[in-house]
C-alpha cells in the first residue's frame, strides 16, 4: 500500500513516538523510510550573514545529535533509513520533500517544537494534515 514513508522528527516526545511508529510500519510493510529534520527556528530577516550562521551552527550541532539517535533506532530494528536535515519552514519543507520524493505516507507526532507564531496560527501537525499531498498519520 505504501512505498515510501516519511517521518518528521524534531527530538520532541511526540516525534519520538512518530519515529517508533514509522520504523515499525516501514519494517512491517517492507517500504523505504525517510526521516526529515527541519531547522525551523533560524532567524528571519537577519542583519548579517553571521547572525544567521551562528544560529545555524548551533542548530546543525543539535540536529547532528538527533540524526545519530535516528540512525541508532533504525539500526536496532535492522532497518535502512535515509535522513535529511533541511533549513526552512517546517510545514513547507516537508510538503516540498513529499512532492520531490513521491512519499505516500507522512508520520508525525501530535505536538513537536513550535514557535509562538505557530501556537497563535495553528499547530504544525494540523497544518501538515491540511497541506501534505499524501496520507498523514498523526501519532499521539
Amino acid at each position, binding site marked *: 500500500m505504501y512505498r515510501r514513508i516519511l517521518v518528521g522528527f524534531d527530538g520532541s516526545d511526540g516525534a519520538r513516538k512518530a519515529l517508533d511508529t514509522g520504523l515499525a510500519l516501514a519494517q512491517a510493510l517492507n517500504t523505504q523510510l525517510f526521516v526529515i529534520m527541519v531547522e525551523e*527556528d533560524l*532567524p528571519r530577516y*537577519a542583519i*548579517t550573514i553571521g*547572525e544567521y550562521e551562528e544560529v545555524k551552527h548551533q542548530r546543525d550541532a543539535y540536529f547532528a545529535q538527533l540524526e545519530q539517535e535516528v540512525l541508532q533506532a533504525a539500526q536496532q530494528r535492522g532497518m535502512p533509513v535515509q*535522513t*535529511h536535515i533541511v533549513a526552512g519552514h517546517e510545514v513547507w519543507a516537508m510538503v516540498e520533500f513529499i512532492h520531490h520524493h513521491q512519499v505516500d505516507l507522512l508520520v508525525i507526532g501530535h505536538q513537536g517544537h513550535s*514557535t509562538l*507564531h505557530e501556537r497563535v496560527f495553528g499547530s504544525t501537525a494540523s497544518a501538515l494534515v491540511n497541506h501534505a499531498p499524501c496520507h498523514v498519520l498523526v501519532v499521539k
Partner: protein
Amino acid sequence: MNVWWVAFVWIGLALIASLLSMRLAISVALMEIIVGTIAGNLLHLQPNEWINFLAGLGGVLLTFLAGAEIDPDSLRQHWKASLAIGFVSFVAPFLAAMAYAFSIAGWSADASRIAGVALSTTSVAVVYAVMIETGLNRTALGKLILAACFVTDLGTVVALGLLFAHFNAWLLLFVGASILLLPLAPLLTRWFFARVSVHTSEPQIKFILVLVLLLSALAVQANSEAVLPAYLLGLALAAPMARNWDFMHRLRTVTFTLLTPFYFLKAGSYIALPALGSAIGLVAILLLVKIVAKVVGCYPLCRLWHMPHREATYTTLLMSTGLTFGTISSLFGLTHGYINQQQYTVLVTVVIGSALLPTLIAQSFFKPSTEVEPLATEATESVP
C-alpha cells in the same frame, strides 16, 4: 537618573529583544528596533553621550562584519554579471527614490540624497537566509545573486561615505591612508594573528579595532562616514576572516552582546509612531518606488544573462530587500541633521518593509524549482 539606571534600562530592553528574537525566530536587530520604537514612544527612551558612542562603534563593527562576509570566490567567478546587476540594483533605486523625494515629496536636496542611499540597498543577510532555505546557495544562480548583493551594498556604502564628505585635505589623507592600508591589511592581519595567539584579553580583536578606528577617525575628520572604511576593511580582510570562524564568532559575540543592541535600540527610539500615521501613504509609495526601480533596472539584465522569467523575477525581488545599510544610512541622515524625525521614520519603515514584502512575494510566487537534493553531509543512509 544615574549611569547605572540608564545602563539597566538599555540592557534590560536588549535582553527583552533577545528573548523575543529567540522565541519568534526573527533577527535580534529587527526586534531591537521594534523594542526601541516602543520604548522611545512610550518611555521616552533617549540616548546620551556614552550610548551614542557604543551605538556608533556597534554600527561600525557591524559594517566591518558585513564586509568580511563577502565571498571573494563568488565575486571572481561571476564578476561581469554580479557587477552589472549589483551596480544597476544600486543606481536605479538611488536615482528613483532621490528624484521622488526631491521632486514630488518636496524633501531638501540632502534629505533626498539620504532617501536615495537608504533605499538603494539590498539585504545580503536576508537574501542569504532565503538561499540556504531553498538550497539555491549551492547553485550558480544563488552565488551570482549573493555576489550582486555585495556589489549593491558596496555602492550604497561608497555613496554614503562620499556624498556628504568635504573635499579637503582630510579627505585626501583618508583616501591616501585607505589606498595604503587596505591592500596591506590582509598581510598585516595574517602576520599579527600568527604571532599573537588567542588570549582572554583578545589582542586579535583589539588589532582589528585599531585598524578600523584609525580609518574611521580619518573618514569622520573628512566629514565622511565611518562605515565606509569599516566596510572596505572588512572586504579587504574577507579571505583571511573566512578561514577564521573562531575569531569571527568571538568578534560577533562582542559586537552583538554589548554594542549593536545600543545601535538598534537607538535607531528604533527615533521612530515617531504619531508621524508614521500621517505619512503611511508616503511609506507605501517609496516602497513601491524602490521595488519598481529594482525591477526596471535588474530584470532586463537578468534576462540578458539568460535567466528564465521566473528566476529573473525571483532575483530581482531578492535584490529589492534591504535592512542593514538602509537603517545605517537613515540614522546617519538623522544624526547629521540631513533629515528630520518624520523623514527618518518614513525611511526606516520603508527599509523594514523592504526586508519583508519582496521576500514574501518572491517566496510565494516566484520560487525557482530547484531540485533540493541533499548535500553529502546532509544525507546519511544506514544500511545494516
